[in-house]
């Protein structure tokens, strides 16, 4: 079996055997209009409006965009242009909840008989890549030539430490997930549909394996638990041997990778007509004594989830040091616990003060760990040194744009250097450099 390099991260799937609990409806939700890649949704409600669960509150603003629905019933309190707590720019719809969770009028299952219906359903559902990327699912499913799609990979790898929300999807929503597989099987003509699961999830493998045996429209493919097994390029290579070239999409090599929770959500929407309004979120981390999977309305403040898990928040040794949206390898640290849960949020990871401390980097000893552990074989150490030397004109040869920022380099660096961060900086610097080169060329051409 093909296997790209990676790192062995601690699994810490403490919540894998716990079905999710439903979080009590918080008094207030703040729903961002930008929870996906592409144009932010355009607000369709105004302050004072009564809204119900599943009601459209933001419409897609373009092809690469996604609609946003109210996750609660209640009253729109305000439309804000900036998150007061985190300073994040973008439009937020703040809704005071009434706790009744009254469904919106006209929630009926869509009729799906053709590919067009299927894609329209994906679009109307407001579903975006729920594994974290937030790429609008309808855009992903829109292909010019269906016969060009040879492999469809359902991503249940869930390779980040702590997170088990996909694991629980594969167990608790196995039927919905399989209904999604049926839809994929019906509307695409792929050579193979793979359901990829890391082998540290025996329960999910057992559950899906039984279904796959009964209805062999897709193959269950257990994979070694090597981070980042769930990375799109990694999965495609390990399962099909195909390589996604720089700047290209999986579709360019005949593949579509879709997260398992995304697919299950789509199948649920088609069955019920209720758009994406809630998420299963794993709350875990070194500062969480009582880890849990919670189902929470989108827009719920992180603090409400933490409170429910009795996460200690008082200052002190076991106190909270860092809060992440996502897992410890790729999660984004938030400056404030009032930040809301987004569509793509699959976990809230809380690290204690000791783990939160940012280590002081020492000199690079050129051990090459970053290079050996890079799944894509990037010369991380050279990208770092070229960036630090300011020689951006020489950085392109190392192809920093291929980097998916999985974090393996920083994770394995004995000198604790923030290599992943240097990769991001190198990419940005290269982008600026190329733009400047282009502008200069155009100027030269005009003269």
């Amino acid at each position, binding site marked *: 079996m093909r296997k790209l390099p990676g790192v062995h991260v601690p699994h810490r799937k403490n919540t894998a055997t716990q079905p999710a609990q439903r979080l009590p409806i918080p008094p207030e939700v703040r729903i961002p209009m930008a929870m996906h890649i592409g144009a932010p949704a355009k607000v369709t409600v105004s302050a004072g409006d009564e809204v119900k669960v599943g009601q459209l509150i933001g419409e897609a603003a373009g092809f690469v965009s996604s609609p946003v629905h109210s996750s609660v019933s209640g009253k729109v309190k305000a439309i804000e242009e900036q998150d007061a707590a985190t300073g994040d720019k973008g439009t937020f719809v703040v809704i005071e909840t009434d706790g009744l969770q009254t469904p919106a009028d006209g929630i009926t299952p869509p009729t799906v008989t053709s590919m067009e219906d299927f894609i329209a359903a994906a679009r109307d559902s407001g579903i975006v890549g729920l594994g974290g990327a937030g790429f609008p699912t309808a855009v992903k499913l829109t292909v010019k030539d269906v016969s060009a799609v040879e492999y469809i990979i359902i991503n249940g790898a869930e390779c980040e*430490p702590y997170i088990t929300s996909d694991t629980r999807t594969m167990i608790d929503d196995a039927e919905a997930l399989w209904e999604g597989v049926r839809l994929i099987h019906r509307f695409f003509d792929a050579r193979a549909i793979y359901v990829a699961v890391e082998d540290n999830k025996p329960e999910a493998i057992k559950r899906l394996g039984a279904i796959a045996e009964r209805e062999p429209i897709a193959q269950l493919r257990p994979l070694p638990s090597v981070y980042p097994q769930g990375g799109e390029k990694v999965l495609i290579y390990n399962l099909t041997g195909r390589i996604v070239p720089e700047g290209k999409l999986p579709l360019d090599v005949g593949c579509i990778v879709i997260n398992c929770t995304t697919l299950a959500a789509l199948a649920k929407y088609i069955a019920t007509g209720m758009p994406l309004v809630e998420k299963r979120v794993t709350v875990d981390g070194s500062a969480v004594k009582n880890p849990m999977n919670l189902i929470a309305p989108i827009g719920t403040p992180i603090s409400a989830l933490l*409170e429910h898990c009795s996460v200690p928040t008082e200052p002190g040794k076991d106190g909270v040091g860092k809060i992440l949206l996502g897992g410890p390898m790729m999660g984004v640290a938030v400056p404030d616990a009032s930040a809301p849960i987004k569509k793509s949020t699959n976990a809230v990871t809380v690290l204690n003060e000791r783990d939160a401390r940012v280590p002081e980097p020492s000199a690079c000893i050129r051990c090459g760990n970053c290079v050996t552990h890079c799944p894509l074989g990037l010369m991380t150490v050279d990208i770092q040194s070229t960036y630090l030397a300011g020689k951006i004109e020489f950085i392109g040869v190392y*192809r920093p744009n291929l980097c998916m920022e999985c*974090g393996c380099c920083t994770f394995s660096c004995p*000198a604790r250097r923030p290599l*992943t961060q240097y990769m991001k900086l190198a990419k940005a610097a290269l982008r600026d450099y190329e733009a400047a080169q282009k502008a200069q060329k155009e100027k030269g051409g005009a003269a």
Partner: protein
Amino acid sequence: MSNPEAGNLSAGRLVVSPSPHIHSGRSTTEIMRDVLIALAPAAVASVIVFGWRAALVIAVCIVSAVFFEWGFQKLTKRRGTIGDLSAAVTGVILAFNLPASIPLWQAALGSAIAIILVKQLFGGIGKNFANPAITARIALFLAFSRTMTSFSMGAATSASPAADAITGATPLALAKIAAQGGEQAASALAHMPSKLTLFLGNHAGCLGEVSALALVIGFAFLLLRRVISWETPVVYVAVVFGLSAAFGRDPVDAVLSGGLLLGAVFMATDYVTSPMSFKGRVVFAIGAGFFTTVIRVFGSYPEGVSFSILLMNILTPYIDKFTIKKPLGGGAA
């Protein structure tokens, strides 16, 4: 904020930093500690072969190397790095490249050359262009060629005064004399230690190079701990083996004698001064093996390991430049 506990969180105490937020736990210090552990069997072997004088030389080298690093960083007001143990590693490797009878002040001078001239003046750990211990060994070798090539054998010294050039000679020197022919050739051959002796270490030589067994144990440990990868030592040794046979030398003797194993396992694998990619490391090892054999066979020195590694150290930036790894999905550069 409706939630008073969340208020605590927003008191400016949350750490916000880029991902990833966890670490493997591996550190530079841990790697250097692993190298020291891997060097330990050879250190024990040197004490068995050469007596306590060997331990004294090793101790002087370690203490002086650490002292010079500490002192230089104090003087230049740089952040201290003796805690990363790299200076200690340099000290041990330098000692391993010295004969047991070396005057102690010369050993300490070697540490000064390694740490101050080669390492710190170029920016400290990670910045030196050549291996500090090797460069210091070569400097001492050129400056004090008499004491650097006088190999007493401690308890095992031969009592025959007639063959002074023979008894104290290293196996490589013997091989050279034998290969040159003449009246001493037969005597040299007669004094050549058996292969088993070469493997175990009871023969003349520098401290760390005599016991192939101890070095192989160290190599296995480094591989097990993933401190180094196999290609540099294996390719280096294989090239010396093959070329020596081609030049009519006994290839097994060529591998087991002199500083080859010490150099291949502990010096050619120095992170800072060897290439980054697999391909680059293979090129480095082939080059080192080639120059080692050529110097041994055609040069005026019996040994060529340190010269060849130093030469390849200098070529490393160029090797790196021409062996850039092609990443997955990256087109032709």
